[in-house]
Protein backbone atom coordinates (compact mmCIF):
# COMPACT_ATOMS: atom_id res chain seq x y z
CA UNK A 1 0.00 0.00 0.00
CA UNK A 2 2.63 2.46 1.04
CA UNK A 3 4.63 1.86 -2.09
CA UNK A 4 1.76 2.52 -4.42
CA UNK A 5 3.04 5.18 -6.82
CA UNK A 6 1.60 8.55 -6.07
CA UNK A 7 1.34 11.55 -8.31
CA UNK A 8 1.86 14.84 -6.58
CA UNK A 9 3.09 16.75 -9.58
CA UNK A 10 1.73 20.06 -10.66
CA UNK A 11 0.20 19.11 -13.97
CA UNK A 12 -1.43 16.01 -12.62
CA UNK A 13 -4.04 17.98 -10.83
CA UNK A 14 -5.14 20.94 -12.82
CA UNK A 15 -8.18 22.17 -10.94
CA UNK A 16 -7.66 25.88 -10.54
CA UNK A 17 -3.95 25.77 -11.22
CA UNK A 18 -4.05 27.84 -14.37
CA UNK A 19 -6.14 30.49 -12.69
CA UNK A 20 -3.76 30.28 -9.79
CA UNK A 21 -0.72 31.15 -11.81
CA UNK A 22 -2.51 33.73 -13.92
CA UNK A 23 -3.88 35.48 -10.84
CA UNK A 24 -0.43 36.22 -9.52
CA UNK A 25 0.56 38.09 -12.68
CA UNK A 26 -2.70 39.95 -12.95
CA UNK A 27 -2.47 41.14 -9.38
CA UNK A 28 1.12 42.13 -9.81
CA UNK A 29 0.00 44.12 -12.83
CA UNK A 30 -2.52 45.95 -10.68
CA UNK A 31 0.15 46.85 -8.15
CA UNK A 32 2.45 47.89 -10.95
CA UNK A 33 -0.16 50.39 -12.11
CA UNK A 34 0.65 52.48 -9.06
CA UNK A 35 4.30 52.57 -9.98
CA UNK A 36 3.37 53.38 -13.55
CA UNK A 37 1.22 56.23 -12.25
CA UNK A 38 4.13 57.78 -10.43
CA UNK A 39 6.34 57.30 -13.43
CA UNK A 40 3.73 58.87 -15.67
CA UNK A 41 3.30 61.83 -13.36
CA UNK A 42 7.02 62.45 -13.22
CA UNK A 43 7.41 61.96 -16.95
CA UNK A 44 4.54 64.21 -17.90
CA UNK A 45 5.64 66.93 -15.51
CA UNK A 46 9.32 66.76 -16.35
CA UNK A 47 8.61 66.62 -20.03
CA UNK A 48 6.42 69.72 -19.94
CA UNK A 49 8.75 71.48 -17.57
CA UNK A 50 11.76 70.79 -19.78
CA UNK A 51 10.09 72.68 -22.60
CA UNK A 52 9.34 75.45 -20.18
CA UNK A 53 12.86 75.65 -18.84
CA UNK A 54 14.31 75.75 -22.32
CA UNK A 55 12.75 79.20 -22.52
CA UNK A 56 12.92 80.32 -18.94
CA UNK A 57 16.02 79.98 -16.85
CA UNK A 58 15.82 78.10 -13.58
CA UNK A 59 17.28 81.11 -11.83
CA UNK A 60 14.56 83.36 -13.10
CA UNK A 61 11.90 80.83 -12.20
CA UNK A 62 13.01 80.26 -8.66
CA UNK A 63 14.28 83.71 -7.74
CA UNK A 64 12.12 86.08 -9.76
CA UNK A 65 9.49 87.94 -7.83
CA UNK A 66 7.25 88.83 -10.73
CA UNK A 67 4.84 86.38 -12.28
CA UNK A 68 3.44 87.73 -15.56
CA UNK A 69 3.50 84.73 -17.85
CA UNK A 70 1.03 86.14 -20.34
CA UNK A 71 2.61 89.49 -21.00
CA UNK A 72 3.25 89.50 -24.74
CA UNK A 73 6.28 91.70 -24.97
CA UNK A 74 8.08 91.05 -21.73
CA UNK A 75 6.77 88.09 -19.83
CA UNK A 76 8.41 87.26 -16.55
CA UNK A 77 8.36 83.96 -14.77
CA UNK A 78 9.29 84.35 -11.14
CA UNK A 79 7.40 81.64 -9.32
CA UNK A 80 7.96 83.28 -5.94
CA UNK A 81 4.62 85.10 -5.81
CA UNK A 82 2.78 81.83 -6.43
CA UNK A 83 4.87 79.97 -3.87
CA UNK A 84 4.29 82.84 -1.49
CA UNK A 85 0.56 82.57 -2.03
CA UNK A 86 0.66 78.85 -1.41
CA UNK A 87 2.74 79.44 1.69
CA UNK A 88 0.30 82.01 3.04
CA UNK A 89 -2.56 79.58 2.67
CA UNK A 90 -0.53 76.71 4.08
CA UNK A 91 0.84 78.60 7.06
CA UNK A 92 -2.49 80.24 7.74
CA UNK A 93 -4.43 77.03 7.59
CA UNK A 94 -1.81 75.26 9.69
CA UNK A 95 -2.09 78.01 12.29
CA UNK A 96 -5.78 77.22 12.46
CA UNK A 97 -5.82 73.47 12.07
CA UNK A 98 -2.82 72.50 14.16
CA UNK A 99 -3.83 74.04 17.48
CA UNK A 100 -7.52 73.34 17.02
CA UNK A 101 -6.93 69.84 15.72
CA UNK A 102 -4.46 68.98 18.44
CA UNK A 103 -6.65 70.30 21.24
CA UNK A 104 -9.59 68.47 19.73
CA UNK A 105 -7.57 65.29 19.66
CA UNK A 106 -6.61 65.75 23.31
CA UNK A 107 -10.20 66.38 24.21
CA UNK A 108 -11.44 63.33 22.36
CA UNK A 109 -8.71 61.02 23.54
CA UNK A 110 -8.26 62.17 27.14
CA UNK A 111 -11.41 63.88 28.30
CA UNK A 112 -14.41 62.86 26.25
CA UNK A 113 -16.41 59.78 27.13
CA UNK A 114 -16.32 57.05 24.57
CA UNK A 115 -19.89 57.86 23.61
CA UNK A 116 -19.01 61.46 22.83
CA UNK A 117 -15.93 60.34 20.95
CA UNK A 118 -17.90 57.90 18.85
CA UNK A 119 -20.22 60.68 17.76
CA UNK A 120 -17.86 63.63 17.48
CA UNK A 121 -14.97 61.99 15.65
CA UNK A 122 -16.91 60.86 12.57
CA UNK A 123 -18.86 64.11 12.63
CA UNK A 124 -15.64 66.05 12.36
CA UNK A 125 -14.44 63.70 9.65
CA UNK A 126 -17.36 64.85 7.52
CA UNK A 127 -15.47 68.13 7.23
CA UNK A 128 -12.69 66.39 5.36
CA UNK A 129 -15.17 64.73 3.03
CA UNK A 130 -16.95 67.86 1.84
CA UNK A 131 -15.93 68.75 -1.71
CA UNK A 132 -13.47 71.58 -1.81
CA UNK A 133 -15.58 73.56 -4.20
CA UNK A 134 -18.18 73.78 -1.46
CA UNK A 135 -15.56 75.33 0.79
CA UNK A 136 -14.86 77.88 -1.90
CA UNK A 137 -18.53 78.74 -2.08
CA UNK A 138 -18.68 78.86 1.72
CA UNK A 139 -15.71 81.23 1.86
CA UNK A 140 -17.27 83.63 -0.61
CA UNK A 141 -20.76 83.54 0.77
CA UNK A 142 -20.01 83.36 4.48
CA UNK A 143 -16.43 83.82 5.65
CA UNK A 144 -15.43 86.81 3.54
CA UNK A 145 -18.53 88.86 4.43
CA UNK A 146 -17.77 88.24 8.10
CA UNK A 147 -14.14 89.25 7.62
CA UNK A 148 -15.30 92.38 5.86
CA UNK A 149 -17.39 93.27 8.86
CA UNK A 150 -14.47 92.80 11.19
CA UNK A 151 -11.85 94.39 9.01
CA UNK A 152 -13.38 96.63 6.36
CA UNK A 153 -10.29 96.63 4.16
CA UNK A 154 -10.77 92.98 3.35
CA UNK A 155 -10.87 92.28 -0.35
CA UNK A 156 -13.46 90.10 -1.99
CA UNK A 157 -10.69 87.62 -2.52
CA UNK A 158 -8.28 87.34 0.31
CA UNK A 159 -5.75 84.96 1.68
CA UNK A 160 -7.41 84.92 5.09
CA UNK A 161 -10.71 83.47 3.88
CA UNK A 162 -8.83 80.86 1.88
CA UNK A 163 -6.65 79.96 4.82
CA UNK A 164 -9.65 79.74 7.14
CA UNK A 165 -11.64 77.35 4.97
CA UNK A 166 -8.60 75.24 4.18
CA UNK A 167 -7.79 75.23 7.88
CA UNK A 168 -11.28 74.02 8.72
CA UNK A 169 -11.02 71.40 6.00
CA UNK A 170 -7.85 69.89 7.42
CA UNK A 171 -8.86 69.99 11.10
CA UNK A 172 -10.08 66.40 10.95
CA UNK A 173 -6.83 65.21 9.42
CA UNK A 174 -4.97 66.60 12.39
CA UNK A 175 -7.53 65.62 14.99
CA UNK A 176 -8.30 62.11 13.79
CA UNK A 177 -4.76 60.94 13.16
CA UNK A 178 -3.51 62.58 16.35
CA UNK A 179 -6.35 61.06 18.29
CA UNK A 180 -5.46 57.63 16.94
CA UNK A 181 -1.88 58.18 18.02
CA UNK A 182 -2.91 59.36 21.47
CA UNK A 183 -5.35 56.51 22.00
CA UNK A 184 -2.62 54.06 21.19
CA UNK A 185 -0.51 55.35 24.04
CA UNK A 186 -0.93 52.55 26.55
CA UNK A 187 -2.88 53.29 29.69
CA UNK A 188 0.04 52.01 31.70
CA UNK A 189 1.90 55.23 30.92
CA UNK A 190 -1.02 57.32 32.07
CA UNK A 191 -1.29 55.25 35.22
CA UNK A 192 2.40 55.71 35.87
CA UNK A 193 2.00 59.45 35.78
CA UNK A 194 -1.19 59.51 37.82
CA UNK A 195 0.54 57.29 40.33
CA UNK A 196 3.21 59.96 40.73
CA UNK A 197 0.63 62.58 41.54
CA UNK A 198 0.27 64.16 38.14
CA UNK A 199 -2.92 65.99 37.28
CA UNK A 200 -4.93 65.13 34.21
CA UNK A 201 -3.56 68.22 32.52
CA UNK A 202 -0.02 67.08 33.15
CA UNK A 203 -0.74 63.56 32.03
CA UNK A 204 -2.25 64.85 28.80
CA UNK A 205 0.47 67.34 27.97
CA UNK A 206 3.58 65.81 29.49
CA UNK A 207 3.01 62.11 28.98
CA UNK A 208 0.45 61.42 26.29
CA UNK A 209 1.47 64.22 23.96
CA UNK A 210 5.21 63.44 23.87
CA UNK A 211 4.55 59.71 23.70
CA UNK A 212 2.39 60.11 20.62
CA UNK A 213 4.52 62.83 19.10
CA UNK A 214 5.51 60.97 15.96
CA UNK A 215 1.92 60.20 15.09
CA UNK A 216 0.94 63.79 15.77
CA UNK A 217 3.79 65.21 13.72
CA UNK A 218 2.94 62.89 10.88
CA UNK A 219 -0.62 64.15 11.07
CA UNK A 220 0.63 67.73 10.85
CA UNK A 221 2.76 66.95 7.84
CA UNK A 222 -0.08 65.19 6.06
CA UNK A 223 -2.46 68.05 6.79
CA UNK A 224 0.06 70.61 5.57
CA UNK A 225 0.67 68.57 2.47
CA UNK A 226 -3.03 68.59 1.80
CA UNK A 227 -3.18 72.36 2.30
CA UNK A 228 -0.37 72.86 -0.19
CA UNK A 229 -2.22 70.91 -2.85
CA UNK A 230 -5.67 72.29 -2.11
CA UNK A 231 -7.16 73.77 -5.25
CA UNK A 232 -10.79 74.72 -5.70
CA UNK A 233 -11.36 76.35 -2.33
CA UNK A 234 -8.39 78.67 -2.72
CA UNK A 235 -9.17 79.34 -6.36
CA UNK A 236 -12.58 80.62 -5.40
CA UNK A 237 -11.68 82.24 -2.11
CA UNK A 238 -8.17 83.64 -2.35
CA UNK A 239 -8.26 84.97 -5.87
CA UNK A 240 -5.87 85.19 -8.76
CA UNK A 241 -3.43 87.96 -8.01
CA UNK A 242 0.09 86.62 -7.91
CA UNK A 243 1.82 88.93 -5.48
CA UNK A 244 4.09 88.85 -2.50
CA UNK A 245 2.24 90.53 0.33
CA UNK A 246 2.22 90.31 4.08
CA UNK A 247 -1.39 91.39 4.28
CA UNK A 248 -3.64 88.41 4.92
CA UNK A 249 -6.66 90.39 3.78
CA UNK A 250 -5.18 90.99 0.36
CA UNK A 251 -5.69 88.87 -2.69
CA UNK A 252 -3.10 86.28 -3.63
CA UNK A 253 -2.74 83.42 -6.05
CA UNK A 254 -1.60 79.95 -5.16
CA UNK A 255 0.20 77.57 -7.47
CA UNK A 256 -2.90 75.43 -7.72
CA UNK A 257 -5.13 78.39 -8.50
CA UNK A 258 -2.80 79.36 -11.30
CA UNK A 259 -3.07 75.85 -12.67
CA UNK A 260 -6.84 76.12 -12.69
CA UNK A 261 -6.59 79.48 -14.39
CA UNK A 262 -4.51 78.02 -17.16
CA UNK A 263 -6.53 74.83 -17.23
CA UNK A 264 -9.79 76.64 -17.84
CA UNK A 265 -8.34 79.47 -19.80
CA UNK A 266 -7.03 80.14 -23.20
CA UNK A 267 -3.61 78.47 -23.11
CA UNK A 268 -2.88 76.64 -26.29
CA UNK A 269 -0.75 73.56 -26.29
CA UNK A 270 2.85 74.49 -26.77
CA UNK A 271 2.46 78.06 -25.60
CA UNK A 272 4.65 79.16 -22.76
CA UNK A 273 1.58 79.55 -20.60
CA UNK A 274 0.68 75.92 -21.17
CA UNK A 275 4.22 74.81 -20.45
CA UNK A 276 4.29 76.83 -17.26
CA UNK A 277 1.46 74.58 -16.10
CA UNK A 278 3.89 71.69 -15.98
CA UNK A 279 6.66 73.69 -14.35
CA UNK A 280 4.28 74.71 -11.60
CA UNK A 281 2.87 71.20 -11.39
CA UNK A 282 6.36 69.82 -10.98
CA UNK A 283 7.15 72.31 -8.25
CA UNK A 284 3.93 71.37 -6.49
CA UNK A 285 4.63 67.68 -6.87
CA UNK A 286 8.13 68.15 -5.49
CA UNK A 287 6.78 70.01 -2.47
CA UNK A 288 4.18 67.41 -1.60
CA UNK A 289 6.67 64.64 -2.30
CA UNK A 290 9.07 66.16 0.20
CA UNK A 291 6.29 66.41 2.74
CA UNK A 292 5.52 62.75 2.25
CA UNK A 293 9.12 61.74 2.63
CA UNK A 294 9.26 63.87 5.76
CA UNK A 295 6.21 62.17 7.18
CA UNK A 296 7.61 58.70 6.47
CA UNK A 297 10.87 59.73 8.03
CA UNK A 298 9.14 61.00 11.15
CA UNK A 299 7.22 57.79 11.46
CA UNK A 300 10.23 55.56 11.12
CA UNK A 301 12.56 57.78 13.10
CA UNK A 302 10.27 58.33 16.04
CA UNK A 303 8.35 55.13 15.96
CA UNK A 304 6.87 54.67 19.42
CA UNK A 305 8.00 51.64 21.25
CA UNK A 306 6.36 51.39 24.58
CA UNK A 307 7.72 48.02 25.54
Amino acid at each position, binding site marked *: MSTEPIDLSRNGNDVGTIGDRLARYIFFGCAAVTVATTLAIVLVLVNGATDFFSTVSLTEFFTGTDWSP*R*AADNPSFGVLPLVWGTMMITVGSALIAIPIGTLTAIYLSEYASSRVRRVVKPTLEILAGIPTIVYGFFALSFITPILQQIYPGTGTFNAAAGAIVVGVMIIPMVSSISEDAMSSVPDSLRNAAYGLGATKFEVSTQVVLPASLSGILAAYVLAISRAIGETMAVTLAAGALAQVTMNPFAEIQTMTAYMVEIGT*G*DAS*VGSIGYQSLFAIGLTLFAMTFLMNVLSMWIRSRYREEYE
Partner: protein
Amino acid sequence: LTRGEDSGLEGEIRIDGSNTLRPNSALVAEQFMWENNRVQASVSASGTGAGFQQFARREISLQNASRPITDEEAEHCRENGVEWLELEVVLDGIALLKHPDNDWCECLTVDELGDLWERGSDIETWADLEPEQSDEEWPDEEISFYGRDAASGTFDYFTEHITGSVGNIRNDYSGTPDTNNIIRGVRGNEYTIGFGGAGYYYENEADAELIAVNYEDGEDPGDEWDDCIVPTRESIEAEAYQPLSRPMYIYVRRDELARPEYREFVRFYLENTQETAREVQFYAVPDETIADQRETLEAAIEDYT
Protein backbone atom coordinates in the same frame (compact mmCIF):
# COMPACT_ATOMS: atom_id res chain seq x y z
CA LEU B 1 -35.88 61.12 -18.68
CA THR B 2 -36.12 62.87 -22.01
CA ARG B 3 -36.98 66.50 -22.29
CA GLY B 4 -37.84 68.53 -25.36
CA GLU B 5 -39.04 67.33 -28.70
CA ASP B 6 -37.77 64.77 -31.10
CA SER B 7 -37.33 66.27 -34.54
CA GLY B 8 -35.82 63.16 -36.01
CA LEU B 9 -32.37 64.68 -36.05
CA GLU B 10 -29.70 62.89 -34.11
CA GLY B 11 -25.97 63.21 -33.42
CA GLU B 12 -23.30 64.93 -31.39
CA ILE B 13 -21.99 68.43 -31.89
CA ARG B 14 -18.94 69.31 -29.87
CA ILE B 15 -18.46 72.98 -29.18
CA ASP B 16 -15.41 74.37 -27.47
CA GLY B 17 -13.33 77.52 -27.39
CA SER B 18 -13.88 80.90 -25.85
CA ASN B 19 -14.87 81.19 -22.27
CA THR B 20 -16.37 84.55 -22.99
CA LEU B 21 -18.60 83.48 -25.80
CA ARG B 22 -19.56 80.23 -24.11
CA PRO B 23 -22.81 81.45 -22.50
CA ASN B 24 -24.17 82.53 -25.85
CA SER B 25 -23.37 79.27 -27.59
CA ALA B 26 -24.60 77.36 -24.59
CA LEU B 27 -27.90 79.18 -24.68
CA VAL B 28 -28.29 78.59 -28.40
CA ALA B 29 -27.44 74.94 -27.89
CA GLU B 30 -29.88 74.69 -25.03
CA GLN B 31 -32.69 76.09 -27.10
CA PHE B 32 -31.76 73.97 -30.07
CA MET B 33 -31.85 70.86 -27.98
CA TRP B 34 -35.31 71.62 -26.65
CA GLU B 35 -36.43 71.26 -30.22
CA ASN B 36 -34.08 68.47 -31.26
CA ASN B 37 -33.63 66.40 -28.16
CA ARG B 38 -31.65 63.62 -29.75
CA VAL B 39 -28.88 65.97 -30.75
CA GLN B 40 -26.21 66.27 -28.06
CA ALA B 41 -24.60 69.67 -28.40
CA SER B 42 -22.05 69.85 -25.59
CA VAL B 43 -20.30 73.10 -24.87
CA SER B 44 -16.93 73.26 -23.20
CA ALA B 45 -14.79 76.31 -22.70
CA SER B 46 -11.10 75.68 -22.80
CA GLY B 47 -10.39 79.09 -24.28
CA THR B 48 -10.18 80.50 -27.75
CA GLY B 49 -6.61 79.41 -28.42
CA ALA B 50 -6.99 75.92 -27.01
CA GLY B 51 -10.26 75.63 -28.90
CA PHE B 52 -8.65 76.48 -32.22
CA GLN B 53 -6.09 73.74 -31.66
CA GLN B 54 -8.84 71.19 -31.22
CA PHE B 55 -10.71 72.69 -34.10
CA ALA B 56 -7.72 72.24 -36.36
CA ARG B 57 -7.35 68.65 -35.22
CA ARG B 58 -11.06 68.00 -35.91
CA GLU B 59 -11.68 67.18 -32.29
CA ILE B 60 -14.53 69.64 -32.14
CA SER B 61 -16.96 70.69 -34.79
CA LEU B 62 -17.74 74.22 -33.76
CA GLN B 63 -15.40 76.77 -32.30
CA ASN B 64 -16.28 79.77 -30.15
CA ALA B 65 -13.82 82.60 -30.66
CA SER B 66 -13.57 85.88 -28.89
CA ARG B 67 -11.17 87.13 -31.57
CA PRO B 68 -10.52 86.29 -35.22
CA ILE B 69 -8.39 83.32 -36.07
CA THR B 70 -4.66 84.09 -36.16
CA ASP B 71 -2.46 83.35 -39.16
CA GLU B 72 -0.74 80.62 -37.26
CA GLU B 73 -3.99 78.94 -36.35
CA ALA B 74 -5.28 79.30 -39.87
CA GLU B 75 -2.13 77.64 -41.12
CA HIS B 76 -2.62 74.83 -38.66
CA CYS B 77 -6.15 74.29 -39.93
CA ARG B 78 -5.06 74.26 -43.53
CA GLU B 79 -2.35 71.71 -42.80
CA ASN B 80 -5.06 69.41 -41.55
CA GLY B 81 -7.38 70.21 -44.39
CA VAL B 82 -9.89 71.84 -42.13
CA GLU B 83 -11.94 74.44 -43.99
CA TRP B 84 -14.02 76.81 -42.03
CA LEU B 85 -16.61 79.51 -42.11
CA GLU B 86 -16.31 82.50 -39.79
CA LEU B 87 -19.60 83.82 -38.47
CA GLU B 88 -19.88 86.94 -36.33
CA VAL B 89 -22.46 86.20 -33.69
CA VAL B 90 -22.30 88.71 -30.83
CA LEU B 91 -20.81 92.01 -29.84
CA ASP B 92 -19.24 92.52 -26.49
CA GLY B 93 -18.40 95.69 -24.67
CA ILE B 94 -15.67 95.78 -22.08
CA ALA B 95 -16.78 98.05 -19.29
CA LEU B 96 -14.59 99.99 -16.92
CA LEU B 97 -16.06 99.71 -13.47
CA LYS B 98 -15.81 101.74 -10.31
CA HIS B 99 -17.40 101.75 -6.89
CA PRO B 100 -20.81 103.49 -6.62
CA ASP B 101 -19.38 105.95 -4.08
CA ASN B 102 -16.68 107.01 -6.48
CA ASP B 103 -18.02 110.33 -7.71
CA TRP B 104 -14.74 111.90 -8.77
CA CYS B 105 -13.86 109.82 -11.76
CA GLU B 106 -16.49 109.97 -14.52
CA CYS B 107 -14.50 109.63 -17.71
CA LEU B 108 -10.99 108.63 -18.73
CA THR B 109 -9.23 108.91 -22.03
CA VAL B 110 -7.66 105.88 -23.64
CA ASP B 111 -4.22 107.40 -23.04
CA GLU B 112 -4.96 107.89 -19.38
CA LEU B 113 -6.17 104.33 -19.19
CA GLY B 114 -3.02 103.15 -20.93
CA ASP B 115 -0.84 104.97 -18.41
CA LEU B 116 -2.90 103.53 -15.60
CA TRP B 117 -2.93 99.90 -16.70
CA GLU B 118 0.42 99.43 -18.40
CA ARG B 119 3.08 97.30 -16.92
CA GLY B 120 5.28 99.17 -14.50
CA SER B 121 2.82 102.03 -14.25
CA ASP B 122 3.75 104.44 -11.49
CA ILE B 123 0.18 105.47 -10.83
CA GLU B 124 -0.67 104.14 -7.41
CA THR B 125 -3.36 106.43 -6.07
CA TRP B 126 -6.36 108.17 -7.52
CA ALA B 127 -4.53 111.45 -6.90
CA ASP B 128 -1.73 110.25 -9.17
CA LEU B 129 -4.31 109.67 -11.87
CA GLU B 130 -6.09 112.98 -11.45
CA PRO B 131 -6.16 114.92 -14.73
CA GLU B 132 -4.77 118.47 -14.59
CA GLN B 133 -8.04 120.28 -15.30
CA SER B 134 -10.16 118.41 -12.80
CA ASP B 135 -12.81 120.28 -10.79
CA GLU B 136 -12.60 118.09 -7.78
CA GLU B 137 -9.69 116.86 -5.75
CA TRP B 138 -9.17 113.11 -6.27
CA PRO B 139 -8.46 111.19 -3.10
CA ASP B 140 -4.92 110.21 -2.26
CA GLU B 141 -5.98 106.61 -1.83
CA GLU B 142 -4.39 103.59 -3.37
CA ILE B 143 -6.25 102.18 -6.33
CA SER B 144 -6.92 98.48 -6.45
CA PHE B 145 -7.22 96.83 -9.82
CA TYR B 146 -9.44 94.02 -11.02
CA GLY B 147 -9.85 92.50 -14.40
CA ARG B 148 -10.22 89.33 -16.43
CA ASP B 149 -7.42 86.87 -16.08
CA ALA B 150 -4.54 86.63 -18.47
CA ALA B 151 -5.94 83.46 -19.99
CA SER B 152 -8.98 85.19 -21.45
CA GLY B 153 -9.68 86.76 -24.80
CA THR B 154 -11.09 89.70 -22.90
CA PHE B 155 -7.72 90.26 -21.36
CA ASP B 156 -5.97 89.99 -24.70
CA TYR B 157 -8.35 92.46 -26.26
CA PHE B 158 -8.23 94.92 -23.39
CA THR B 159 -4.46 94.97 -23.14
CA GLU B 160 -4.01 95.18 -26.86
CA HIS B 161 -6.29 98.16 -27.21
CA ILE B 162 -5.56 100.03 -24.01
CA THR B 163 -1.89 99.47 -23.28
CA GLY B 164 -0.82 98.78 -26.83
CA SER B 165 0.23 95.16 -26.74
CA VAL B 166 -1.23 91.89 -25.63
CA GLY B 167 -0.36 91.02 -22.07
CA ASN B 168 1.03 94.43 -21.22
CA ILE B 169 -0.60 95.03 -17.89
CA ARG B 170 0.46 96.10 -14.42
CA ASN B 171 1.33 93.12 -12.31
CA ASP B 172 -0.59 94.17 -9.22
CA TYR B 173 -3.95 93.82 -10.88
CA SER B 174 -6.10 90.96 -9.82
CA GLY B 175 -7.10 88.81 -12.74
CA THR B 176 -9.99 86.39 -12.49
CA PRO B 177 -11.75 84.13 -14.94
CA ASP B 178 -15.04 85.07 -13.32
CA THR B 179 -16.33 88.52 -14.16
CA ASN B 180 -18.68 88.23 -11.25
CA ASN B 181 -15.70 88.31 -9.00
CA ILE B 182 -14.61 91.56 -10.60
CA ILE B 183 -17.94 93.06 -9.66
CA ARG B 184 -17.56 91.75 -6.14
CA GLY B 185 -14.06 93.15 -6.00
CA VAL B 186 -15.29 96.56 -7.08
CA ARG B 187 -18.13 96.51 -4.63
CA GLY B 188 -15.80 95.59 -1.80
CA ASN B 189 -13.58 98.66 -1.99
CA GLU B 190 -14.36 102.28 -2.77
CA TYR B 191 -11.07 102.85 -4.56
CA THR B 192 -11.24 100.01 -7.01
CA ILE B 193 -11.17 100.11 -10.77
CA GLY B 194 -11.94 97.06 -12.85
CA PHE B 195 -12.62 95.88 -16.37
CA GLY B 196 -14.92 93.14 -17.55
CA GLY B 197 -17.82 92.30 -19.82
CA ALA B 198 -20.34 95.13 -19.84
CA GLY B 199 -23.22 92.71 -19.58
CA TYR B 200 -22.15 91.75 -16.11
CA TYR B 201 -22.45 95.35 -15.03
CA TYR B 202 -26.10 95.48 -16.04
CA GLU B 203 -26.77 92.45 -13.89
CA ASN B 204 -25.25 94.18 -10.89
CA GLU B 205 -26.03 97.82 -11.31
CA ALA B 206 -26.26 98.44 -7.61
CA ASP B 207 -22.79 97.17 -6.95
CA ALA B 208 -20.77 99.19 -9.41
CA GLU B 209 -20.81 102.12 -11.79
CA LEU B 210 -19.35 102.66 -15.22
CA ILE B 211 -16.47 104.90 -16.16
CA ALA B 212 -16.92 106.44 -19.59
CA VAL B 213 -14.16 106.16 -22.19
CA ASN B 214 -12.95 108.98 -24.36
CA TYR B 215 -11.30 107.66 -27.54
CA GLU B 216 -9.52 110.72 -28.82
CA ASP B 217 -7.60 108.87 -31.52
CA GLY B 218 -10.51 106.89 -32.83
CA GLU B 219 -13.04 107.53 -35.52
CA ASP B 220 -15.65 110.08 -34.64
CA PRO B 221 -18.64 108.00 -33.66
CA GLY B 222 -21.01 110.62 -34.93
CA ASP B 223 -22.88 113.65 -33.76
CA GLU B 224 -25.33 111.91 -31.56
CA TRP B 225 -22.50 110.72 -29.28
CA ASP B 226 -20.54 112.64 -26.64
CA ASP B 227 -16.80 112.36 -26.34
CA CYS B 228 -17.18 110.29 -23.22
CA ILE B 229 -19.13 107.17 -23.98
CA VAL B 230 -20.31 104.49 -21.58
CA PRO B 231 -21.06 100.99 -22.84
CA THR B 232 -24.79 100.70 -23.41
CA ARG B 233 -26.73 98.53 -25.75
CA GLU B 234 -27.04 101.43 -28.17
CA SER B 235 -23.44 102.54 -27.99
CA ILE B 236 -22.13 99.05 -28.49
CA GLU B 237 -24.52 97.86 -31.17
CA ALA B 238 -23.78 101.07 -33.03
CA GLU B 239 -20.09 100.35 -32.47
CA ALA B 240 -19.69 103.83 -31.01
CA TYR B 241 -18.16 102.57 -27.77
CA GLN B 242 -14.58 102.35 -28.93
CA PRO B 243 -12.07 100.89 -28.65
CA LEU B 244 -13.62 98.53 -26.10
CA SER B 245 -16.40 96.92 -28.08
CA ARG B 246 -15.60 93.96 -30.20
CA PRO B 247 -17.30 91.25 -32.22
CA MET B 248 -17.07 87.58 -31.39
CA TYR B 249 -17.32 84.65 -33.75
CA ILE B 250 -18.13 81.07 -34.23
CA TYR B 251 -16.05 78.99 -36.60
CA VAL B 252 -17.95 76.35 -38.49
CA ARG B 253 -16.29 73.35 -40.09
CA ARG B 254 -17.41 73.14 -43.68
CA ASP B 255 -17.09 69.37 -43.91
CA GLU B 256 -19.42 68.98 -40.95
CA LEU B 257 -22.15 70.77 -42.88
CA ALA B 258 -22.79 67.46 -44.56
CA ARG B 259 -24.47 66.36 -41.34
CA PRO B 260 -28.10 67.51 -41.31
CA GLU B 261 -28.15 68.07 -37.52
CA TYR B 262 -25.05 70.23 -37.76
CA ARG B 263 -26.53 72.21 -40.63
CA GLU B 264 -29.65 72.77 -38.67
CA PHE B 265 -27.73 73.83 -35.66
CA VAL B 266 -25.72 76.50 -37.47
CA ARG B 267 -28.86 77.81 -39.12
CA PHE B 268 -30.54 77.88 -35.76
CA TYR B 269 -27.56 79.71 -34.31
CA LEU B 270 -27.74 82.54 -36.80
CA GLU B 271 -31.47 82.76 -36.39
CA ASN B 272 -31.37 83.10 -32.64
CA THR B 273 -28.10 84.66 -31.73
CA GLN B 274 -29.30 88.24 -31.71
CA GLU B 275 -31.83 87.36 -29.10
CA THR B 276 -29.67 85.06 -27.05
CA ALA B 277 -26.79 87.52 -27.05
CA ARG B 278 -28.86 90.00 -25.12
CA GLU B 279 -30.00 87.38 -22.69
CA VAL B 280 -26.48 86.52 -21.71
CA GLN B 281 -25.26 90.07 -21.34
CA PHE B 282 -23.89 90.52 -24.82
CA TYR B 283 -25.08 92.72 -27.62
CA ALA B 284 -26.62 91.83 -30.95
CA VAL B 285 -24.79 92.12 -34.24
CA PRO B 286 -26.61 94.25 -36.83
CA ASP B 287 -29.37 92.65 -38.92
CA GLU B 288 -27.46 93.18 -42.17
CA THR B 289 -24.49 91.22 -40.89
CA ILE B 290 -26.74 88.35 -39.95
CA ALA B 291 -28.43 88.40 -43.33
CA ASP B 292 -25.10 88.36 -45.17
CA GLN B 293 -23.83 85.48 -43.12
CA ARG B 294 -26.95 83.46 -43.78
CA GLU B 295 -26.32 83.67 -47.43
CA THR B 296 -22.72 82.58 -47.00
CA LEU B 297 -23.88 79.68 -44.90
CA GLU B 298 -26.51 78.51 -47.35
CA ALA B 299 -23.95 78.70 -50.12
CA ALA B 300 -21.56 76.57 -48.14
CA ILE B 301 -24.30 74.10 -47.36
CA GLU B 302 -24.99 73.81 -51.07
CA ASP B 303 -21.41 72.65 -51.55
CA TYR B 304 -21.83 69.83 -49.12
CA THR B 305 -25.21 68.43 -50.05
